[in-house]
């Protein structure tokens, strides 16, 4: 009896010691994370309940900042714009990426495939700021896009795309397509190489064309990879900042203003810190609300 007790205390002592040492391993990471992520996160929520210019005293306003965001068209408009960007940054690259990847998968093997992989991945490694600057020039009045349009006889529709109230947002979207399409294609192609080639072989022996193969094999079996592409690109769209800041800074007017840009402008040029924080909280909530179902759907049943 006495022996058993002492053994148990010794055991629990060892477990406790191990837990203690283990927590020491986590401590540095946890400390950094707490100070520079968790505390700022809580402070963002706290600030969002005040009216504050960043310098003077802050006034408690409760949820009024959130009400303001819903009432002011320029503020709620940033969230509408963010969803439009999802179409360009996410739906088009993933949809087009799937089609292109499945075509490439059937025909491109060997050298051309390898070179294409590298080339298509290029926009993914350069800073988004550079992508914004490059496309700012391409979409300018004398830029390459208008030059091509004129060459094919569409000179009538040329314009300064990023300065046009109706076209600026799709133009920014085009930059997103350029950055993300290659990434989606390469990721989906990698997924396709994991699919048992016998499946494709037998489909082809049965005389299945590209479309049958696409609908019956590629899309269902790539559910997980499609989910990954959607997650990455949707976050890129909702949290967009670099490309928009450099190419349009939210303009003309508020035509391309997205939450990231508006948070920056409100907090650091208009000194409306409380309002900026309320928008930040909404942005963070929005990302979670949109991403969770995608994750859930793509993991459900896949692998």
């Amino acid at each position, binding site marked *: 009896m006495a022996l058993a007790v002492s053994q148990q205390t010794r055991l629990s002592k060892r477990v406790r010691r191990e837990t203690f040492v283990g927590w020491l391993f986590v401590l540095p990471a946890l400390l950094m994370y707490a100070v520079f992520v968790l505390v700022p996160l809580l402070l963002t929520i706290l600030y969002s309940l005040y009216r504050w210019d960043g310098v003077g005293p802050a006034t408690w306003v409760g949820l009024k900042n959130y009400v303001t965001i819903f009432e002011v068209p320029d503020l709620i408009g940033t969230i509408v714009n963010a969803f439009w960007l999802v179409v360009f940054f996410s739906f088009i690259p993933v949809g087009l990426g799937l089609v292109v990847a499945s075509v490439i998968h059937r025909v491109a093997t060997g050298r051309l495939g390898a070179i294409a992989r590298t080339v298509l991945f290029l926009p993914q490694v350069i800073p988004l700021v550079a992508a914004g600057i490059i496309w700012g020039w*391409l979409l300018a009045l004398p830029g*390459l896009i208008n*030059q091509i349009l004129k060459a094919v006889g569409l000179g009538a529709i040329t314009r300064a795309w990023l300065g046009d109230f109706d076209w600026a947002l799709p133009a920014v979207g085009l930059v997103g397509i350029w950055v993300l399409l290659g990434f989606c294609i390469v990721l989906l192609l990698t997924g396709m190489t994991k699919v048992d080639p016998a499946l494709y072989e037998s489909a082809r022996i049965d005389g299945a064309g590209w479309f049958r193969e696409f609908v019956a094999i590629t899309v269902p079996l790539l559910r997980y990879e499609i989910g990954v592409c959607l997650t990455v690109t949707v976050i890129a769209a909702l949290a967009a900042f670099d490309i928009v800041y450099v190419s349009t800074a939210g303009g003309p007017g508020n035509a391309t203003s997205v939450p*990231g840009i508006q948070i920056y402008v409100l907090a650091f040029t208009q000194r409306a810190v409380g309002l900026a924080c309320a928008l930040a909280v909404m942005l963070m909530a929005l990302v979670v609300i949109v991403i969770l179902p995608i994750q859930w759907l793509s993991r459900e049943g896949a692998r």
Partner: protein
Amino acid sequence: MRVARGELWAGRGLLLALMAFTILPFISIFMTALHPSGTVPSGLEWPTNPQWGNFIEAFNVAEMPALLVSSTFIVLAVVPVSLVISTMAGFAIGLLRILGAPVLLFLFVFGLTLPFSGIIIPIYFLERALGIYNTRLAIVLPLIALYMPFAIFWMRAHFVNMPTEISEAARVDGATTWDLFWHIHVPLARAPIASLGILMSIWTWNQFLLALVLVEDPTQRTMAGALGAFQGHYATDVPLLCAGTILILVPTLVVFILFQRQIITALLQGSVKG
């Protein structure tokens, strides 16, 4: 492969068109960069008299050597520290499975979807209070913290799949937890650590928002942040802006071409696991 000839060529054509779509923008800014400074050329036009001197001028006005030093310093400060502390945390959560590991994992994973712009405002005021605003530390410290969700998630995924026999055998031989970590599991984790290092180096080099908000002096910023400042000054001088952009891209492109296989693999794995 049973693929019709026409389809073969259609597929290759599509692939080449996509490659052209990716490459043409680079060619356009390269040609533009060779036009006389201050002029407005058209998008794709080889200049009659190429101004190679634009690159030298951009090199000087952008203070390239200072930018390279600054970016390299920031990468060298962020990446090793992030690697060490996230590997340690991933080891404790995934392999030691310490009491409270699920809670810790949830706490970190929760940060995976967090947009940087969501928490940048308090970070700004915090750094003003700490007196590190407008120094490189202002970028380094939050960046390490912001990488923790992904880095720990990544390292834990490796450690959680390690067979327990290895650790048990070492324990029998009297190894301490630190020995187990440093002499046995870190050497076994070399591949995921290397990939993580590549990813974080690229992300740091390209980090813009933190540089923009927290550091005013371009020579204390990351490469992307400095490029943003350069654009602010020379937005109207298109050839010079293009020349500067190319110069700032060169280090990235060289590294990408040298390590393309590792970088592509790391980026793909990174998104699949994250």
